[in-house]
């Protein structure tokens, strides 16, 4: 999966897809003429198995455009707003403003944008906001100038404000159009003919690239971003063939040809720290590879940095399938890098869902290439994200431990599982959001939250949350399970129930129901209702409600649990009070 080269190719690629995905309306507010951008986004989303139906408006300034939506009584289901200011349009406004006001131009624009967002925030909208393409006004040659009124300075102020606002406003993400345009070059991103004649802010054949990255960013909040990067070793993570050159012979280090690989390692480490999992898939001798990671004097990545490793001579497609299985991920969450076209082709053919970038032949071009692909949009930062790799390491330890026990119950006992229970709070909100997007298998209703939705629900009294942290003697799983129940009089209804796949077969679901039942009974609730909503991935919980003692009500697949009669099942999880 990569951006297509021309608008025409994108049109043809999309018309060949018969999309069955439901259309999701999104709003585009643009200072350029948005028709082509809207088409490109719709088509690009179809290439990824989604179907955005953009409803685009063209306005003189995006703040005015947004406020116009408010007056027009914006349809409430359009929660996602893509905002695309135009640097050309801003420069027109800049020159049209009185000279003495130009010093404050950037502050004013950023302020207008902020106020418009604040007005719409109450409608539960979230914004993907493009920053500004690079623009040289030519008024000072290439000297930026010390004048406070220089346009470059004003753009800088707008960018700075936008980033600060994104840190403060939960419903704002900033799309780095500036970097993307700088990378591609103005000659290819902007076509003055169609700016003057049709107010097109972008060259037609730049739109597939722009839409590719915009759609990736829009999908990020839906948990669709890749989660693991599988790496080859020889001539990918170091120069040369380990088995031939030996540990001293491979190119890796801070000098000469090794520095290319050293820098790649550093970048991969930073990616891992962001929560992206790393894995190894190499045709090699495992003992030699382990030794190389241990003994090499300048190897930033360590063996334990990899959440899964497959060092053998099996086809890479099979290894990647088994890595995905081990990490409980779909193949579409996998990116694979390898210097050899033969291996890439084998994986592409046998695992078409895997993202396989065309790594450049020359090693020095690869890091820049991977950076520009923007494959790992990650908006949400949470502590758990960074700890995720460590979890997989502990999981390996647990698997080894399990092998020592013949009886599964004995193994569970040996884990000494302890859980804490809490309600939705600012402290756990980011993780709840993230888990709602990442959890596929144990997900009864597959309702993916939005950040502003959770902020709103946190305040609602007719709601009961059961949020569970689990730890055992090997380590801390963190926040792994969530039930949201809506309360209406004496009845409660399960509106969401999902759990991390890391804690399957630990009786956590039984524990959760026990806790929820106790919590609801103490509020005087006598009935708990639930329904299973099937997806292609949640077969696992098809029988969850009847297995836990719910009875069919005969209506629309609804299940009911009589809380007056409910007797908790015993589990091997003990509840801790808050730490």
């Amino acid at each position: 999966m990569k951006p297509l080269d021309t608008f025409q190719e994108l049109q043809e690629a999309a018309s060949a897809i018969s999309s069955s995905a439901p259309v999701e309306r999104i709003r585009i507010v643009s200072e350029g003429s948005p028709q082509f951008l809207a088409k490109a986004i719709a088509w690009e989303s179809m290439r990824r198995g989604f179907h955005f139906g953009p409803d685009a408006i063209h306005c003189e300034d995006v703040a005015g455009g947004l406020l116009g939506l408010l007056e027009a009584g914006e349809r409430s289901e359009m929660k996602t707003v893509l905002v695309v200011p135009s640097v050309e349009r801003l420069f027109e406004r800049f020159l049209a403003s009185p000279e003495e006001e130009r010093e404050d131009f950037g502050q004013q624009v950023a302020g207008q944008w902020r106020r418009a967002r604040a007005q719409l925030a109450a409608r539960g909208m979230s914004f993907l906001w493009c920053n500004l393409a690079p623009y040289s006004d030519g008024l000072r040659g290439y000297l930026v100038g010390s004048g406070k009124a220089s346009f470059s300075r004003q753009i800088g102020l707008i960018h700075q404000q936008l980033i600060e606002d994104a840190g403060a406003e939960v419903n704002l993400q900033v799309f780095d159009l500036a970097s993307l345009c700088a990378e591609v070059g103005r000659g290819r991103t902007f076509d003055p003919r169609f700016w003057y004649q049709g107010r097109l802010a972008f060259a037609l054949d730049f739109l597939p690239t722009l839409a590719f990255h915009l759609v990736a960013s829009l999908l990020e909040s839906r948990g669709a971003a890749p989660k693991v990067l599988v790496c080859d070793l020889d001539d990918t993570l170091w120069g040369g063939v380990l088995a031939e050159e030996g540990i001293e012979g491979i190119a890796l280090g801070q000098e000469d040809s090794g520095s290319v690989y050293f820098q790649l390692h550093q970048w991969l480490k930073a990616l891992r720290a962001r929560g992206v999992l790393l894995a190894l898939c190499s045709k090699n001798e495992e003992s030699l590879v382990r030794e190389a990671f241990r003994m090499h004097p300048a190897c930033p990545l360590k063996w334990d940095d990899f959440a899964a490793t497959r060092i053998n001579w099996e086809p890479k497609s099979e290894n990647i399938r088994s890595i995905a299985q081990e990490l409980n991920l779909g193949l579409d969450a996998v990116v694979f890098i390898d210097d050899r076209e033969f291996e890439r082709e084998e994986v592409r053919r046998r695992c078409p869902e895997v993202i396989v970038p065309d790594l450049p032949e020359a090693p020095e071009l690869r890091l820049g290439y991977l950076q520009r692909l923007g494959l790992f949009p990650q908006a949400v930062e949470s502590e758990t994200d960074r700890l995720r790799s460590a979890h997989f390491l502990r999981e390996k330890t647990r698997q080894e431990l399990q092998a020592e026990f013949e009886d599964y119950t004995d193994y569970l006992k040996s884990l000494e599982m302890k859980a804490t229970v809490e309600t939705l709070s600012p402290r756990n909100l980011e993780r709840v959001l993230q888990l709602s997007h990442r959890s596929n298998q144990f997900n009864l209703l597959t309702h993916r939250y939005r950040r502003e939705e959770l902020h709103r629900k946190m305040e609602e009294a007719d709601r009961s949350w059961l949020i569970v942290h689990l730890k055992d003697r090997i380590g801390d799983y963190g926040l792994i399970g969530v039930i949201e129940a809506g309360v209406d009089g004496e009845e409660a209804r399960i509106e969401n129930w999902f759990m991390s796949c890391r804690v399957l077969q630990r009786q956590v679901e039984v524990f959760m129901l026990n806790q929820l039942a106790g919590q609801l009974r103490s509020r005087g609730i006598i009935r708990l209702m639930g329904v299973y909503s099937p997806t292609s991935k949640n077969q696992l919980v098809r029988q969850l409600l009847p297995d836990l003692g719910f009875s069919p009500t005969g209506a629309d697949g609804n299940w009911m649990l009589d809380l007056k009669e409910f007797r908790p099942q015993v589990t091997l999880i003990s509840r801790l009070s808050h730490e």
Partner: protein
Amino acid sequence: MSDATSVSPEITEVFRRVLQQPDLELNRTTTADDVSGWDSLSHIQIVVALEKAFGIRFSSSEITDLPDVGALCDLIEAKQSG
């Protein structure tokens, strides 16, 4: 110069692909009004696709001053030989 009525198959092909009308036929007197879907937006798409196909570039005024397909054919021919 081309003959009075025919339009080169390469040009027709570009129109067919952009407008997604595989059976579209053009002649030199065809105007935008004669072809469904040939509006100001798809005109931009056609221009960009023609530029790509023939390795040429139109100026702003050339794009707007095209009364019919014949004028377009002549312009492309002139640009290619120039």
